[in-house]
């Protein structure tokens, strides 16, 4: 999976550079988030700008990140969701769980 990681202030931004975040590749995102958490980063921004499609496995991996961050008293923010992705969050009511921002910059400034 193509992921790009950047540090900005107290946050680590993970750019998911894939068109799909699904059962095939979302395990890689989980591994990367776990690596960051274990390295002491507890405030993550997951940028979904390039993700056109997410399935329930992709959602599950983000939920796992949310729980991991909460346990460590950190935060996980999501940015730049496309239409299908946003509608999957709404359908599963996960849009009430996550802090969702229009852009990475909005997430950083919040």
């Amino acid at each position: 999976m193509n992921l790009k990681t950047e540090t900005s202030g107290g946050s680590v931004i993970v750019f998911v550079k894939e068109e799909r975040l699904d059962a095939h590749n979302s395990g890689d995102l989980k591994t990367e988030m776990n690596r960051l958490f274990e390295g002491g980063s507890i405030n993550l921004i997951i940028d979904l700008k390039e993700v056109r499609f997410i399935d329930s496995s992709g959602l599950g991996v983000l939920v796992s990140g949310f729980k991991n961050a909460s346990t460590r008293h950190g935060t996980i923010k999501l940015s730049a969701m496309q239409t299908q992705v946003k509608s999957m969050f709404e359908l599963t009511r996960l849009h009430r769980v996550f802090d969702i921002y229009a852009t990475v910059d909005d997430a950083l400034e919040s």
Partner: protein
Amino acid sequence: MKNDIVLEITIPNQTCYLSLVGKIGESMAKELDRYDGDREELASRINTVLTEALVNAIKHANVTDPTKEILVRINISGKELAIRVFDNGQGFDLNRVPDPCFDSDILNENGRGLFIIRSLMDSVVYKKANGGNVLEMKKSLR
């Protein structure tokens, strides 16, 4: 049989083929002249439903045995779309799968697949077929 379209896809039992099937389903939907609704939205719905059903067949039925195969059949007959995903597993009871959206389990990592499928299609049935099982998902194209 007039005006029926049938699409059958056989893929190895591997998640790397999810996007292949999803994309094929999407392009089919985008070309469906007979559907007056939003075809982009239909395409995205079909992509989602195919992906969820295939993942279940791969993970729960065929237990990630990469030598197995999965058959998907899409029928468009008049104004009805039917998607069937066949598996050779032990089967399960669709009616016993709980709704994942109650507050208590909103933070579960799994258990959203069938809920999503049911939300996006008009009818969903899981039954015996061809010596195995089939998840049959239908949607009216009106």
